C-alpha cells in the first residue's frame, strides 16, 4: 500500500516550520504507525535528508514518550490508544495523513514532531508525591487500604504523562494530568496528610508554567490513552477549594 503524508518539519525551536508532503510505498497493514515513519526515515536518510524527528521508546503504550497530532487528533484514530499502538490497517490509503506535533504554549517544539514537555515534570516536582524517606516505612500491612480507594487510586495512577490532554484542550490546560496525580495520591490513606496542599501547589505551578485554565470541555479525556476520567478534575477542584477554606 502507498500512503501520502503531510508531516510538520521544523529544524529547531526558533525556526519556522511547515507541512511537507511525502509518499511512502510498501506499507503493509501489519506495520505500526511508527514503523511506517521508520520506513520513511530510512529513505530520507539514504537520500541525504534529515529524518523526521519524533519521540518514542517503549512502543507499547506505556512510557508516554510518543504522541503526535494525526489529522488534528492527539494520538490519532482509535480509542484509548497511544500513537505507537496504531497500525496502518487503521488508515485509508486514499486519504493523506496530516502529522503534527503537540501544540501548546508550555510545550515548545524542539524539532519536527518533538516537543519539550518538561513543564509536566515541574508540576510533579511541585508536590506530586508523598513525602516519605527511604527506610522509614512501616510494614506494608500496617495500613490496609479499602479496595474501592485502591481501585480509584490505581485508575488515576495509570496516567503515562504523554501530554495528549494538554494538546487536545482548547485552553492548553494540564488539569487532567494534574488531577490524575492528585487523585492517585489523594485517594490513598498514605496521601492524606499532604492532600490539600498538594492540590494547591500543583495547580498554582501549572498556572505559573502557562498552562490554560480548565473549562471542563472534556476534550482531554476523549483522547487520553489511559481513559483518565473527568471525575478526577472534580476531585481536584474540590481539594483546591478545601485547601483555600482550610488555609493550607
Amino acid at each position: 500500500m502507498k500512503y501520502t503524508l503531510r508531516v510538520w518539519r521544523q529544524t529547531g525551536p526558533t525556526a519556522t516550520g511547515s507541512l511537507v508532503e511525502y509518499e511512502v510505498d510498501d506499507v503493509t497493514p501489519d506495520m505500526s504507525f511508527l514503523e511506517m515513519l521508520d520506513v520513511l526515515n530510512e529513505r530520507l536518510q539514504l537520500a541525504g535528508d534529515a529524518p523526521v524527528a519524533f519521540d518514542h521508546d517503549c512502543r507499547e503504550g506505556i512510557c508516554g514518550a510518543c504522541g503526535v497530532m494525526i489529522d488534528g487528533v492527539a494520538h490519532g484514530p482509535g480509542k484509548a490508544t497511544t500513537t505507537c499502538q496504531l497500525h496502518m490497517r487503521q488508515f485509508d490509503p486514499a486519504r493523506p495523513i496530516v502529522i503534527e506535533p503537540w501544540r501548546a504554549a508550555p510545550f515548545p517544539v524542539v524539532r519536527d514532531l518533538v516537543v519539550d514537555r518538561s513543564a509536566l515534570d515541574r508540576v510533579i516536582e511541585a508536590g506530586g508525591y508523598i513525602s516519605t524517606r527511604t527506610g522509614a516505612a512501616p510494614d506494608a500491612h500496617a495500613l490496609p487500604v479499602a479496595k474501592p480507594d485502591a481501585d480509584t487510586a490505581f485508575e488515576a495512577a495509570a496516567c503515562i504523562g504523554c501530554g495528549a490532554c494538554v494538546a487536545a484542550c482548547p485552553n492548553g490546560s494540564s488539569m487532567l494530568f494534574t488531577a490524575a496525580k492528585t487523585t492517585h495520591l489523594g485517594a490513598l490513606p498514605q496521601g492524606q496528610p499532604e492532600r490539600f496542599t498538594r492540590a494547591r501547589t500543583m495547580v498554582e505551578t501549572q498556572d505559573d508554567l502557562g498552562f490554560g485554565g480548565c473549562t471542563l470541555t472534556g476534550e482531554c479525556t476523549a483522547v487520553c490513552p489511559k481513559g483518565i476520567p473527568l471525575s478526577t478534575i472534580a476531585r481536584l477542584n474540590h481539594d483546591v477549594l478545601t485547601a483555600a477554606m482550610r488555609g493550607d
Partner: protein
Amino acid sequence: MSYREGDPIADTRAPAGPLETRWERRRFAARLVNPANRRKLTVVVVGTGLAGGSAAATLGELGYNVLSFCYQDSPRRAHSIAAQGGINAAKNYAGDGDSVHRLFHDTIKGGDFRSRESNVHRLAEVSTSIIDQCVAQGVPFAREYGGLLDTRSFGGAQVSRTFYARGQTGQQLLLGAYQALARQIHAGTVRSHPRTEMLDLVVADGRARGVVVRDLVTGEISTHLADAVVLATGGYGNVFHLSTNAKGCNTTAIWRAHKRGALFANPCYTQIHPTCIPVSGDHQSKLTLMSESLRNDGRVWVPVQAGDDRPPNRIPEDERDYYLERMYPSFGNLVPRDIASRAAKAVCDAGRGVGPGGLGVYLDFADAIERLGRASVAARYGNLFEMYQRITDEDPYQVPMRIYPAVHYTMGGLWVDYDLRATIPGLFVIGEANFSDHGANRLGASALMQGLADGYFVLPAVIGDYLADGPFGPVGADAVSEAESAVRDLVTTLLSIDGDRTPESFHRELGRLMWDLCGMERSEEGLHKALDRIPSLREEFWRRVKVTGSGAELNQALEKAGRVADFLELAELMCVDALHRTESCGGHFRVESQTADGDARRDDDHFAYVAAWEFTGVGEPPVLHHEHLRFEAVRPTVRSYK
C-alpha cells in the same frame, strides 16, 4: 578471536562468616559520612529506571549532591516502566511457607548455580523492605477485599510472593521512584538532566571522576565531574535488534566504562522469553511481550506434520502436537522460560512452525474457554487478548494466539563486588546494568526487586564507605580533555563517513546474526562463524554508515549510530564468552553440552565461576578473569522438569 587468561579475582568484598548476618555486618562495618560533609560530595547517577531513580532519590535524601541523567525527555520514561508481571518479596503474606531463605534458595537455583550466594541472600533479605517503602510512597499494588495486599505465584514459583499492580507493576514502581526523585529535585539535592546521553567515563588518578555527556537537544558535549559515578543504565538486549526492550535501550554507558577498564561479566547470559508476539515482517522494530501468566491456561501446540498450513481450527486433535505436555509431562506448559523457548525453536526448526515465515507456535485457549467459560477467561486475560488483537488483528477467543520467543533480559553486565563497586574505584553499577544477582538465568519478577534493592537500600548503605575518603580534589584537565575529545572525534567521524547504509540497517543485520548464531542455542561452529562476521560487519559500518545532519542539533540518527557502534563491539565479546563456556547453563545453551533427552548439561567441575572480561582494544583478545563461586548454603543440583 581468542582470549587470554588473567589473574583470578581475589576479593569480592563479601564478609565471611554466617550467610544470614553478612549484610548486617557489612552495613555496620561500612564507614559513614558526616551529614554536614555529604553535600560537598557529588555523585553522578546515570539512568532513572528503578535502579537509578531510587538511588538518586535516596542519595539526595541523605544529603549528597546528586546529578541525574537519562536519555528520555523525562526520568519517568525509563524502560522499567514497561515491566508488567510483578515484583517478588519474601513477605510471606500468603502464609504459604515463604521466607528469606526460600527466596534465596529459589534464586540461586533459578540462576542455575552461577551467582554469588552473599549477594543473593542480601537481595532476599532486602526484598521485604522494598514493599514497605513502595506502599508508603503510594504505589497502588493490587489488594484484596479486606484491604491487604494481594500476591500471586509467578513463573512457576511454588509460593505466592509476587506483588503486582494489574499488568503495570513496573510503571507503578517507577512512578514511585520518579516521585521520590521529583521531591529531591524540588528540594535542590538532585539536579536532573533529561535528554542527555553519557558517552564516556572520566577516569583520573585511577578513580572514576565523572562523565562526558551530549545534550541531545543542542548537541553540546560537556563534562560533569563527581566523587563517584553510578551507572544504572539497564540491559543490552537490543544487541539483538529485536527484543522486548524499549527502542532506546543500549549498552553505551557500560560498554564505554568497560573500555575504560571496568570488567564485563558473563556477557553471554541472555534471557529469551517464550511468549512474545511473533515478527510480522522486515519492518519490525521491536517485539511485544505477552505475559507469562497466559501459559497457566493456554495450551501450546504445533501441527504434527511439517508444512501443514491448514487454519488451526481445521487441524484435528490427533494431528496436533502439544509438545510441552508431551515432553515434560509433570510441568507441561509451565516449564521454565528457557526450556519453553528452546522447545518452540526446535519445532519451528523442524518446519512445524505456524504463521508468517513459520516462526510461531499456537497458544490455544479453546479448552480453557470450554472449561471456564468465555467470561472467566476474559476476566483473567481480557486486557492481554485485547492487546494481542490490536497488534495482530486476530481474535484469540476464536483463533489460537501465535507466539514466539524473544530476547528479554540480559543477566550479564559490568562486574561488581559485594559493595556494587566495579573494578574502577569510584564506579558503582546497579540494576540490570550489573551482573550481580541472577546468575545464568533470572526468575520472573526478580529484576524489579533487584533494581529497587540496589537503588533504595544497598548502594546508599555502602557508598559512604567509599565517599568517606572524599572529596577527592580537583580533576586534572588532561583527563577531562582526553575523554571529551574522544567523544568529539567519535561524533565527527560518524558524521563524516557519508556512506550508503543507515545505522538501522547495520543494527538489523547485527541483530539477525546474533539471534541466529548466539541466541537460544549456541554451537562452536556457529560462534566461530559469528566471530568471523562481526569484525567485518564492524569494518563495513565504519566505511559505509550514513549519518545525516550535524552534531549541533537534535539528531536521532547520530544517537542511533553511536549505540550501534557499541553493539558491534559488545557482540564480539558475547560470542567469545559463549564460545569459551562449553557448558550449558541457564540462558546459555551450548548444543554440544546436552543430555540424551536434549536437556542442558551444566559442568560444575570446569565452569562454576563468573567470567569477568578485561578490554584490551577493539578486535583484540580480551583477558579472562575468573571469580570462583563457592556454594556453602545450597548444594548445586541438576534442574529437572520432566
